């Protein structure tokens, strides 16, 4: 799995409620995250951070000896890593404050485990994308760093070639076709990849490619999607990785 490297990330979980701490830890562990450290207060969190060296922090806002916002500032003072707020405070002002201070995401309790895992993965993927630039799709791999699609040329070659591939990995590489992505295609694919497995609306994709107020680009988006499919799909008219959800958006399936 491509996401395996993310599962080794060190996650610091701060919440004053032991029951909730335990549950969040169990959700993440079940999903394969192995390095989780929990803390119940600002003090515990600060001392844990100095020894544990987290790569993602999940913080509650209301803590017995302080608030999560100032804790985030203290944590980020030493080293910059992503922060996800997981809090019972659902007010808009709190949300704005959290994002304003540089939080990467803000989740209001109660939440579904799926949602938490998705957001944690999304943040990690976004933050540590350079560590594993290759994303595997069904028929190709995408290198977002270089904006390239690596596609094997199995179709054009005979049986002889296929056996050769399995014999030597070096030769397999040489048989891979390298197709470069345009800037717009890259932006659209990246937006889809960040929400891999989920539908991304047409509007969100247009915004990713053309910036704010992206209305009137729907047809251009369709053209770009068609070109992306030519690059990543085996049969562009029968897509398996980049799925259309009619009228709404698109979904990228990552293997």
């Amino acid at each position, binding site marked *: 799995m491509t996401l395996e490297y993310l599962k080794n990330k060190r996650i610091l979980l701060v919440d004053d*409620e032991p*029951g*909730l701490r335990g*549950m*969040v830890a*169990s*959700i993440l562990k*079940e999903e394969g995250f192995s390095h989780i450290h929990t803390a119940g207060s600002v003090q515990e969190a600060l001392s844990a951070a100095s020894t544990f060296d987290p790569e993602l922090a999940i913080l509650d806002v209301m803590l017995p000896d302080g608030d999560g916002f100032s804790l985030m500032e203290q944590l980020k003072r030493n080293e910059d890593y992503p922060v996800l707020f997981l809090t*019972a*405070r*659902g*007010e*808009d002002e709190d949300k704005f404050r959290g994002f304003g201070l540089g939080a990467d995401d803000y989740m*209001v*309790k*109660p*939440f*579904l*485990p*799926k*949602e938490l895992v998705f957001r944690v993965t999304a943040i990690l993927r976004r933050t540590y994308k350079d560590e594993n630039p290759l994303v595997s799709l069904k028929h190709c791999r995408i290198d977002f760093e270089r904006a390239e699609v690596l596609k094997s040329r199995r179709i054009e070659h005979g049986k002889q070639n296929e056996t050769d591939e399995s014999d030597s990995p070096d030769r397999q590489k040489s048989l891979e076709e390298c197709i470069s992505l345009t800037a717009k295609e890259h932006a659209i694919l990246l937006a889809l990849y960040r929400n891999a497995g*989920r*539908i*991304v*609306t*047409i*509007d*969100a994709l247009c915004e990713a490619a053309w910036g704010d107020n992206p*209305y*009137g680009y*729907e047809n251009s988006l369709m053209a770009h999607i068609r070109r992306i499919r030519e690059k990543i799909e085996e049969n562009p008219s029968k897509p398996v990785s980049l799925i259309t*959800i*009619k*009228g*709404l*958006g698109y979904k990228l399936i990552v293997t």
Partner: protein
Amino acid sequence: MRSIPKLIRRFLAILLLSVILLFLLNIIVLFSISMRQTPGASAWTTAAETGAALTKTADGNDYILAEDTASELIREEVWGILIDNDTHQVVWHTDNLPPEIPRHYSLADIASLTRGYVMNYPAFTGQHTDGLIVLGYPQDRYWKHMYPNWDYYFIANLPKIILNVLIVNAALIFMIYLIASTNLMRSVRPIAEGIQALPTKEPVYVREKGVLSELAAAINQTSEILKSQNYQLRKRESARANWIAGVSHDIRTPLSMVLGYAAQLTDNPQLDEDARQKTRVIIRQSERIRNLINDLNLASKLEYDMQPIRRTRENAVAIARQIVVDFMNMDIDGKYPIEWKTKPQLTACYVNADKDLLKRAVSNLIQNCINHNPDGCTIYISVQENPENSQSAAKEQQSEQPGVTTCTIQRPDCTGTSPCCIIRVEDDGAGISEEELQRLNNTPHYMMCDSSTLEQRHGLGLLLVRQIAASHDGRISLHPSIYGGFGADILLPV
């Protein structure tokens, strides 16, 4: 403040009118009194009549007075004499002639008595063929004054003079009144201003000085009372909203654990299908509680005007699309497929809206479909622009108010045919009967109801949608769906 000068003008008009009326009335009364007094009552007339009634006797030596004139003179206690033209001697007199009256008169005496008195008796003269009739009235009867004479120029200009006097008088009255009313206005003005400021809920202070200081004090007191009542009300409202916010905050953490563990159990392969089904029920119900908390919080804030509404130009299609996709991404077991029914050519429908609130309204409608169809249903969502669909909108209105003809007046609140954006959420589920629809539209919600009756409506989802629509100058419309279930529209002005 325009009312006070108006008041003063009106008072002035009444005053002038009453002065003129009074003047005319006085003249009429005076005239009628003098008219009544003049005939017969004047001593001069009596003297003239006496002169006419005195005749010479048949032998030519004596005079005789007619009976009725004689009796009148006696009744009036008047004495009379006749002074002969040639001799200036009294040739006739009444029987009651006081003894001190002289019997001989010089010309100077006659001139003097004509103007005034004979021995303190007011005297009046009349003509007779043989001489001068003189009547003497009792001493306390008349006051005689015969000196004045009138300048001819004065008489000739009398109308002009009277007019001038009247004008000067009127001007004087006007000035006096103006000064008096300006003073009054100066003291009334702050009080009037204070009273007018009271309904604006602004704090009012009127200086307690002058004749109307008591009124000013009362206004100040009223303002204080209003201020404190307002403050109390505000305090109570915010306390209630804060209380709701606090409770919902406290419920969130335990509910997270219920939801989280139940969701984990759903995926636990060690549980049999029956147990996993039950955990799904727990998840659904927990989610309902979560939605309730969110709705309760927002509804109370909207109700007490504590929710800031940040309206910007938003594309309703994009917002609806995002919500649909969120639901599709979250739908665990695929029981609630959503179909996007917006026409492909409608890519944008701009409304002036708070994005988060509008999202909330749309997702509440979808959630409403889910809540009322526990066995699953297909949900249909579309965004439309109204002018294109004005006929069906008119039909809807007619069905809402049977027997009332729809008028097509342009109104900004999406009730007429003014351009508006419709976000329609429908399902093919259990649906709703006509009576239920009526009740939903007419029964007050428990959050708005001040008496505790059983007739209150429950469920916050639709209330919140209604509130959000109202805060955007729009409305909602509930109707049976063409897909067989329940349908709800949010109508927003574009």
